[in-house]
């Protein structure tokens, strides 16, 4: 029987992989992909708890709001990445050190 813990373990694996992606990459678009994996892991947790523990729909509504915020975040982050590319001719995150002094 598939229990709550099965979903939580898959979600933990997705979260760890997304975090590795955020940590080891220098390309800004690649880091954004890792962030999407982390958000999906959070959503999977919310829906699994909504099914097995709460037995109501509140977790699914939270997941929908997370998807809304993920869409807005991707749009704004890509706008920032594109203007960074226009400014620096690169999307390497190490190059964005203008404020470093």
């Amino acid at each position, binding site marked *: *029987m*598939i229990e*709550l*813990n099965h*979903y*939580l*373990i*898959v979600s*933990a*694996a*997705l*979260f*760890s*992989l*997304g*975090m*590795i*992606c955020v*940590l*080891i*990459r*220098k*390309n*800004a*678009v*690649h880091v*954004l*992909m*890792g962030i*999407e*994996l982390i958000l*999906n892991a959070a*959503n*999977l947790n919310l*829906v699994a708890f*909504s*099914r*097995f*523990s709460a*037995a109501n*729909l509140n977790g*699914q*509504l939270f*997941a*929908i*709001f997370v*998807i*809304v*915020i*993920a*869409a*807005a*975040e991707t*749009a*704004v982050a*890509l*706008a920032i*990445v594109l*203007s960074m*590319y226009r400014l620096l001719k690169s999307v390497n995150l190490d190059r964005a050190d203008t404020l470093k002094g």
Partner: protein
Amino acid sequence: MDNSLIAQILFYFFALVTVASACLVVFSRNLIYSAFGLLFAFFGVAAFYVLLGADFLAATQMVIYVGGILVLLLFGVMLTHKLYDMKLKSEVFQFWPAVILMLGLFLAIVTALLKARWFHGNVKPPEPTTAAIGNLFMTEYILPFEIASIFLLIALIGAAMIIRRKPE
């Protein structure tokens, strides 16, 4: 074969697909391969939503993540690299420290999960959720719903303002 065996086989199949494509996203050196791995990871998560009885959320995941966010990310890949630069390499730094750290974190989470005793409600058989979600949006969650719509408008205007070329 009874239903629970089929559900188990489907669960393990989609778990394999999701985690393998997430690994492709993380460890591939080619950004286009990473984007396609992300596609299959999103499909796998949508399949989990179906297995969890969240049909509306699975459709939302397909439309917004696969149709919206992934296309946006592909635009990001294409617009930030020269077109003749077909290799699209993405360099890696601090590989092993990050992998070891996150493997430790993963094992810690899993041991915590296996030790925890979750509250189990009575699991009802899945039923269509769309009408119930719509009712909740229009009654209990009306304020977050309206805030989300204003938030999307602000994000739209903000993204357009950030990316706009300044008039000379």
